[in-house]
């Protein structure tokens, strides 16, 4: 008898707790299996800040693609600009294409151009105001990177390195070079060390809050 009561009690409690948690539960973006991007998405086209048409999910003549997701008013994102530029320049010589993707839905093209110029990005820069690439790759933080194969298949999503141990906790120097290790593994035909890592930085707006139809 008392065990039945306990059972009922447990069920009630769980129900109550679930109910209590309900208003706080955030529905995750559907594309959690973003490892395989829809084939139709690989033809996604963007006009970069220079006015050139870009297909950042499809680069048939490259060995891989890096998408650097950044927010122009995030200090952590900005602090990575020099490393983003170094990686982009070094790996472009080894047939890995880089794109810097601004992911602030409110960012104007003029503000993006000014920021890209101030921070000296040399690879193509795309304003993804409708967050289609965010949705496609499953990134949530800026700075965060997605590494894709030439056809847009996701190989890695996560941090560039571990320079930040937490918000406001910057190491003197990064000790885990996750992105570089991933790229080197790809170039050497080896499996990537980690498919995902946790990035530290500012939150990207939730794509589902935006009325978009990729």
């Amino acid at each position, binding site marked *: 008898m008392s065990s039945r009561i306990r059972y009922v*009690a447990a069920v009630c409690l769980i129900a109550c707790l679930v109910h209590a948690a309900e208003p706080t539960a955030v529905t995750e973006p559907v594309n959690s299996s973003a490892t395989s991007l829809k084939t139709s998405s690989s033809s996604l086209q963007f006009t970069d800040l220079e006015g050139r048409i870009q297909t950042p999910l499809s680069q048939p003549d490259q060995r891989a693609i890096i998408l650097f997701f950044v927010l122009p008013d995030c200090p952590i994102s900005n602090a990575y600009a020099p490393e983003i530029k170094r990686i982009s320049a070094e790996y472009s010589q080894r047939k890995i294409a880089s794109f810097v993707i601004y992911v602030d839905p409110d960012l104007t093209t003029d503000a993006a151009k000014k920021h890209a110029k*101030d921070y000296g990005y040399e690879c193509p820069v795309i304003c993804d105001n409708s967050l289609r690439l965010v949705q496609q790759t499953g990134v949530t933080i800026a700075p965060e990177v997605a590494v894709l194969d030439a056809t847009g298949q996701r190989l890695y999503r996560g941090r560039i390195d571990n320079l930040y141990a*937490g918000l406001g906790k910057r190491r003197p*120097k990064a000790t885990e070079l996750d992105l570089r290790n991933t790229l080197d593994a790809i170039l050497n035909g080896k499996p990537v060390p980690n498919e995902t890592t946790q990035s530290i930085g500012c939150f990207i707006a939730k794509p589902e809050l935006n009325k978009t139809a990729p």
Partner: protein
Amino acid sequence: MSVRHLLCTAILGLVVGLASSQRLLAEVTFSKDIAPLIFQKCTSCHRPGEAAPFALQTYADVKKRSELIESVVIERQMPPWKADRGDALFRYERRLEDDQMTLITDWIKNGMPEGNPAELPPLPEFPIGWSLGEPDLIVKMKEPFTVPADGPDIYRNFVIPLELDSERWVTAIDFRPSARSVVHHSLFFFEATGLARKIDGEDQQPGFKGGMGAIARLRGGPAVLTPDASETEPGRPARRQQPGAGLGFFGDQAANESPKFGPLGGWALGAQPHPLPDGLAFRLPAGSDLILATHFHPSGKAEEEASTVGLYFTKDPTKRRFTAIQLPTAFGAFKGINIAPGTKEYVVEDSFELPVDVEAFGVGAHAHYLGKSMKMTATLPDGQTQTLLSIPDWDFAWQEQYRFANYVKLPKGTRLHSRITYDNSADNPRNPSHPPARVRFGEESTNEMASITLQVVAAQESEMPKLIDGYRVHFRQSLLKTPLLKMLQGGQR
């Protein structure tokens, strides 16, 4: 039976509790509850033209950043205020109360209702220009210093001649960086012998290499007593002070009647300039140069910094002389700091019994990247213990100088105790060495220092000499207990 009863009560309680908390939560709106908090705690920096990276002035601003706000508030990264609530309240405190923190996080969880915009309080009127009014003296760095796009943090000292032909008394200094995204904090000092000018530009860049090492060079400070004293180079002016004289980081006006080097306060991100309380003022000798000991964070893009500084003088000399009680003495130079790699908790402590009644008005702490926690307590003669400063998660980047809301009265016989802990393991992300290396005392940021400094006046001005003498005795005793000194004495026998 009783189980069932208990169960019913529990469920009922839970349901009622939930319902009421849901109802309360639903009533929390931006306009009525959140905006006043944001305006008071965040907007002074989070507005256009200030150091913070984005504005927090409207419902849309706050809603857009809600996830980040939630994280930094829960982690107490923001508002920047590292001290816990102790027994003595601080003036100008930016800390969020626990219930304020909960209000914000609950509001975010509840979907961030805006509420009635008519209930929105007006944005505070933030001062435009010099917040304390037109300064008595405005000076600027002679030439800009270039902060590179990336790399480690930079500590740099800049020398600004003040051209004063008579002594002045400084009640406040306002500091205006030109490149707000890279300037993190600046500590102010005066130097009246011309030594700083000589060092200035010795590496062909404006200013000279900063950090406490450089400050020690200027004051003839603890470096003289350390094994790797770089100050024994020939040709450098011998300006050593007597042990016990002028040892404070924050104020040692009374220790020496006319020091040629001394502190003038500081500025950190998020702080507004405030005059010293109660007619207190720092003495600034004629012919002094102002030294800005500035800490830069590279921001991802090269910036040029040319700080402007406004000094506020009082007409009269300081109403009361004040001094600093630093524990351990000399930034821990006599403590034999020697932290083996991998040590999770290394403790440095010091105590001092007050020889006279004192009134404390400020407190600050200093350690480097391994510093983990800081605590200063006062055990009164009646046995009651008060926490004067507690920083549970020390961060070298936030060297706040805390000011008490009121004088904290500490009677004669009160025992001040400081306890500083260090983490030299790989788990400390700020550890400058990877893998961790042995760390000893020193001024470089890869060495360690230890001090908590209490700024005090003697309750009776006439007892100031007794206070200073008492501290000098403590200083000498600390020196004689230095592990190195003992070792040397042992070796000579």
